[in-house]
């Protein structure tokens, strides 16, 4: 290069600007609420979290994971070497050589990224994101040429004024994207915010193969309940929103989006970014919300600011109420962003501060408060379903091996068939079981997902008080929602250690009935004949699968009947919601299709005649699809059909 000092000055200037931007951005996040985070441990854990946990998610898309490793790895390495070689002027042929190699690596990766952008799938955001691969290529090319002389491949001082000009422009443009854009809101922001988000994640338990799905308790009695304004989020939630790469994986998986309801998880996260940084959504370049009131689909109308109420101008409340809390987005998000937490946080504000739970929401909540069940049935009729079941009550027995948590299915005739089937199986296996009877209350799942955490906390505390009176070593339930609450959410209120210690001091095991039945089958306590019906598929309930990681037991049970499961394309962690979670059937936000119909299409495509489920809510949703359609049965019902009764 003709002017030797120019590159280093340009690089340094952009580096300084990037640092300034970084501090400004960090201040935006700090407008959020305090949350304790172990900063040092988080930063130390960062490389492992990136290389293992995040990569594990990205790895599902092999093409993208390889391109990203090459590009990002190449860039980080190149950037360090660029600073050493071109800013500090360390003249080492070895370093220059390494820089050239890493730039080639990055160039190759960027080529693949550019290729994907030739015909980008609709889930990807366009706009500045279409520019990014070009910037990546420009960066690697520019510095490649710039470094050649230092590696002694070209003599020093090669080039004319023209080359100097071209290279300088290359440096400014590519570094503007890569450094300046990283902290001033360009596409590269994902690397900066993403890295910090991984380090300071609100659910560090998720790393290292762990699972953390229970909602965090709302603080009651403060100035605001739930999240009204972006500044009501925890600071690391704001940071998390900023980490989004707009890959749209969440959008592609979201059942509400597919149903044409006014929700797109990607847009929601981008709206949160608009909220935290201020401005409008005019620059958003992805798919809008599929529906919405008025001109909700037109970009530029949504306005946000850190202290503006989110549902007053930034997003419509219907967007929040469309979510089924299925966690498909969270499961799919390579940046490990927590959409559901944010959605429920904002719902809490709408319900507890505004009293604006849509449609049947208010009525259901009022029923839960006054009768401990969502439909307002007489609490004294809770055990009517078991009148002929000869099931002992905990009140009489005081102690039992298994406590059967019946759930509100007790009031519903279809669910009662599942309950009875499960009881028959337990009887056949001589399980020492008892129920709480009328002492059992709604688990609080619906209240919590509808944003009424006050009622949830009440129910949790009262249920725990009841459970604390008795001795048992397992709680088994046929309802994945109750299972999730008891297993993952009651802990926050279990001050007396009712579940963590239990009557025995060993802690109480909370199990879904499929897990428990599978144990019984493994132990040879249930004699089952082979299933002779037609093709069978299995629908993973969200609250069993993604929330609790139980994909195996239901499948093992079906296989124990000799069933070869005809898996749906979207199964296990990618299972599509039935539409019944998160209070969505209660808030009932209109769309173009029904989620349950779409799921039934998935089922029909396998050619199955029978779909096995493990949840009464899924059963209700799928059976609500018009016939002709495959038969819907809970696994307990299928097993009962194959039970070989022993004659004593």
């Amino acid at each position, binding site marked *: 290069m003709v002017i030797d000092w120019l590159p280093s000055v340009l690089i340094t200037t952009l580096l300084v600007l990037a640092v300034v931007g970084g501090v400004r951005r960090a201040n935006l996040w700090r407008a959020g609420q305090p949350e304790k985070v172990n900063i040092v441990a988080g930063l130390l854990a960062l490389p492992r979290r990136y290389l293992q946990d995040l990569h594990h998610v990205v790895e599902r898309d092999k093409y993208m994971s390889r391109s990203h490793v090459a590009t990002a790895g190449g860039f980080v390495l190149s950037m360090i070497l660029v600073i050493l070689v071109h800013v500090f002027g360390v003249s080492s042929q070895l370093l220059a050589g390494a820089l050239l190699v890493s730039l080639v690596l990055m160039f190759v990766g960027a080529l693949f990224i550019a290729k994907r952008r030739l015909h980008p799938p609709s889930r990807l955001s366009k706009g500045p994101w279409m520019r990014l691969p070009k910037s990546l290529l420009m960066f690697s090319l520019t510095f490649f040429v710039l470094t050649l002389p230092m590696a002694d491949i070209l003599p020093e001082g090669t080039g004319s004024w023209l080359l100097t000009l071209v290279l300088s422009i290359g440096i400014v443009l590519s570094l503007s994207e890569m450094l300046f854009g990283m902290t001033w809101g360009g596409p590269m922001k994902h690397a900066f915010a993403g890295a910090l988000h991984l380090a300071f994640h609100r659910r560090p338990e998720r790393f290292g193969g762990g699972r953390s799905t229970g909602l965090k308790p709302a603080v*009651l*009695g403060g100035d*605001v*309940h739930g999240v009204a304004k972006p500044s009501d989020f925890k600071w690391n939630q704001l940071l998390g929103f900023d980490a989004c790469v707009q890959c749209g994986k969440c959008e592609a998986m979201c059942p509400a989006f597919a149903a044409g309801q006014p929700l797109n998880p990607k847009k929601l996260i981008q709206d949160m970014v608009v909220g935290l940084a201020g401005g409008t959504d005019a620059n958003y370049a992805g798919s809008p919300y599929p529906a919405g009131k008025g001109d909700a689909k037109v970009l530029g109308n949504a306005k946000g600011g850190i202290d503006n109420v989110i549902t007053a101008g930034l997003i419509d409340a219907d967007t929040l109420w469309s979510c089924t809390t299925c966690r498909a987005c969270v499961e799919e998000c390579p940046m490990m962003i927590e959409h559901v937490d944010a959605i429920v946080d904002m719902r809490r504000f709408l*319900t*507890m*501060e*505004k*009293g*604006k*739970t849509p449609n049947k*929401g*208010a009525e259901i*909540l*009022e029923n839960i*408060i*006054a*009768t*401990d069940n969502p439909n*307002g*049935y*007489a*609490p004294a009729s809770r055990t009517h379903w078991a009148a002929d079941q000869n099931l002992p009550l905990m009140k009489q027995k005081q102690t039992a091996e298994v406590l059967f948590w019946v759930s509100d299915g007790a009031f519903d005739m279809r669910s009662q068939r599942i309950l009875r089937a499960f009881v028959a199986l337990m009887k056949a296996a001589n399980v020492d079981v008892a129920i709480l009877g009328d002492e059992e209350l709604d688990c609080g799942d619906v209240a919590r997902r509808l944003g*009424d955490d*006050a*009622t949830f906390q009440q129910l949790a505390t009262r249920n725990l008080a009841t459970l604390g009176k008795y001795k048992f070593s397992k709680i088994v339930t046929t309802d994945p929602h109750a299972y999730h609450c008891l297993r993952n959410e009651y802990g926050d209120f279990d001050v007396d250690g009712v579940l963590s210690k239990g009557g025995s001091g060993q802690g109480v095991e909370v199990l879904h009935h499929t897990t428990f039945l599978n144990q019984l089958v493994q132990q040879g306590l249930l004699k089952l004949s082979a299933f002779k019906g037609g093709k069978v598929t299995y629908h993973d309930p969200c609250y069993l699968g993604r929330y609790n990681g139980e994909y195996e037991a239901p499948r093992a049970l079906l296989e124990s009947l000799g069933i070869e499961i005809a898996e749906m394309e979207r199964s296990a962690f990618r299972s599509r919601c039935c539409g019944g979670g998160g209070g969505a059937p209660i808030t009932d936000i209109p769309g173009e299709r029904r989620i349950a119909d779409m799921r039934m299409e998935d089922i029909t495509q396998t050619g199955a005649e029978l779909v096995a489920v493990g949840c009464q809510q899924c059963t209700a949703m799928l059976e609500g699809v018009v016939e002709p359609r495959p038969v819907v049965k809970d696994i307990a019902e299928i097993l009962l059909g194959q039970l070989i009764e022993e004659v004593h």
Partner: protein
Amino acid sequence: MPLNIVSLVSVGRHPQSGRARRAEQDSRAVELGLKLADTALTVLHVGNPDDPILRQYAGMGLPSLTVLKQEDSVDAVPVLQRFLEQKNIDIVLTGVRAESGESSGMVPYLLAHALGWPVVARVADIVAVKDGKAEVLLALPRGQRRAVSIQLPFIASMDHAAEAARQSAFAVGLRATVESVESVGEVDQIRVDWQESVAKIRPKRLKTVKAKTAAERFKAATAKPEGGTGKVMKNETPKEKARAIFDLLLEEKVIR
């Protein structure tokens, strides 16, 4: 001048669980009160100012509630009367009857009698208040309405046809202030001496429908019951009217 409206609220009782709740009709009285006076509405309760159920009313959007502090055994009517007399009130809204306690439905009448105001029973809506007069819609069976015009002040009891109460927001209820007002009350001795027991389910009178087609059945289900034996008495003396009621009660074996 803004309207001075008071909604009277009591502690309700859920029909299935028997648990305390905001009473269905009383919360409609609050809803209508909020429509007419917004947060200038006075919501008044006689009883324990610490009752958590009051928060359920407050959650409808009230910054504060007024409670005339009294024991359960006290007759609410004279307490209310003394309080209402002191204020310059335009409309008092109540439920038709309480969900607990005596549930006699007499409070609006006794109160009106004591204050010398008119009562409008089973109101569906108060459409407008102008020049010291209110245009009121009364609820009649089968969705019919009767428009009446009434001089302020008056007492109105809320029908089920009135706008249902809005959702109660937990945090709003939590933040509301309860103004506890000391008052003098007399023990309702009759009430105290009562014994409560579970009601027996009354046998239903069978309605024999001789309809043959669906259309006829529909008509039978929706038509006004044409009481064959009933008669309209307009010009008779009160004594004759009372006699007719008495005879009917005897005939129906309500009294023996």
